[in-house]
């Protein structure tokens, strides 16, 4: 965000984005709830299977690290899209077909917020 923006505006803007994300999330969640069991299984997938390329502790491998600091400029939607549709230029496969929208969004949140801790 440009530095000339007034702090108050930036704050409000942030709140709006946040509110928007929550609205989107709750819409998805109500359509496709993620159970605690599913969350656990997605956490497992993140470390063990995404970990095949990104490292079990998400510090990176053949693929880049999946740590929050790398995703400061990414919103949840973009990360979820990368998970679902992949990057044909790189070795990142599309996980669409194995993961639902809600799964991808959960993983995106997880990557952006929680860091390498299991």
């Amino acid at each position, binding site marked *: 965000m440009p530095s000339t923006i007034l702090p108050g505006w930036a704050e409000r803007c942030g709140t709006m984005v946040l509110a928007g994300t929550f609205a989107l999330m709750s819409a998805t969640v109500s359509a496709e709830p993620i159970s605690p069991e599913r969350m656990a299984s997605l956490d497992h997938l993140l470390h063990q299977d995404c*970990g095949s390329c990104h490292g079990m502790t998400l*510090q990176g491998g*053949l693929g880049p690290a999946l740590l929050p600091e790398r995703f400061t400029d990414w919103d949840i939607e973009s990360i979820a899209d990368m998970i679902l549709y992949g990057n044909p230029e790189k*070795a990142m496969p599309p996980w669409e077909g194995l993961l639902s929208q809600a799964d991808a969004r959960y993983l995106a949140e997880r990557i952006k917020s929680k860091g390498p801790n299991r």
Partner: protein
Amino acid sequence: MTNFRNLLRIAAVVTVVLLSASGAPRADIALYGTGDLGIVIERAAGSVVIIDTTDVTARSRVEGLGDLSHASAVFSRDGRYAYVFGRDGGLTKVDLLRARISKRIVQSGNSIGGAISQDGTLIAVSNYKPGGVRVFDAKTLDPVADIPADMGDGTLSKVVGLVDAPGQQFIFSLWDAGEIWIADFMDRAQPKIRKYKNVGKNPYDALITSDGRYYVAGLFGEDGLAKLDLWAPDKGVARILDHYGRGEEKLPVYKMPHLEGWAKAGDYLFLPAVGHHEVLVVDANTWQEVTRIPVHGQPIFAVARPDGRQVWVNFAHPLNDTLQVIDVPTMQIAQTYTPGKAVLHMEFTPRGEQVWVSVRDEDRVDVYDTRTMKVIKSIAADKPSGIFLTARAGRIGL
């Protein structure tokens, strides 16, 4: 009197314990070899289990090896030490007889594998971060050489497919740069580097044939394989098997196939396809494709029983609960097993009567009799991945 005898017994026990703690020679160390030993990587716990393939048991556990996700190992030529390469750049020398770490260094930020030189005196590690190869003295783990994988503009490439080759050479591929390099360590103070450029886009792994003649790199970014004949290094890198690769219908690849385990059985090489549910059979003399065998999922390892009669195959997520066996004479699937979630690795005993299979999510290593095709024993291990037996010590490229 009884009390006195008990005291003596206690004294004797204390002496033995003191001796073993101080590292003094122990009869049990002197009295066995390591030819039937090996290690199982416990990837999440950062430990290894020392296994015995004669008694089919786990002997002991060695802890404190760091991040062992995607770990591999090579062995000293006397079979006593395992050199374990961890994801976190850790290089750990494990004493199989004393069941403890004899030396450990963290040599980079992120590494992928390693190799031991022909004469057993050098250990090379391939690194993602910083991209390149570092070489260490096998005895002391002191640094010997640093080979940054400079792409020409100062940026460093991730390095994959590092193997040893005859003539005290290490050969490796540069993922980002699309190059193959040979590092000749005949003079360890002044290694000679030879670079082959433009070998293809994104080499992801490589193998060296067991005679040490051909180095072959798989390409992720395009079809075909890059082949280097080490008996004629001046001829350069040739492209082979133009139909091998992701093909026209590029399927998502959930895990890179491993080429180190590429199976040579008789006149044939068995290669895991990239993305496709197939194992390719290639004539090892002409490097032409012979046939494709449909399999359960995206193959990761295709490993031949040492006599070449069977090839065992495991698969990528989400079909990684299955293990298949190809019967080589008929080129058919002879057996399909479902041992459980995340079948990660297979290792044969040197003469092939057993194969050890790690089943990560079941916390189990299953030992199969390859004649009766039945599990003879299961051994508990914490999230087991790679299995490495000391017989590798005597083999080129392993």
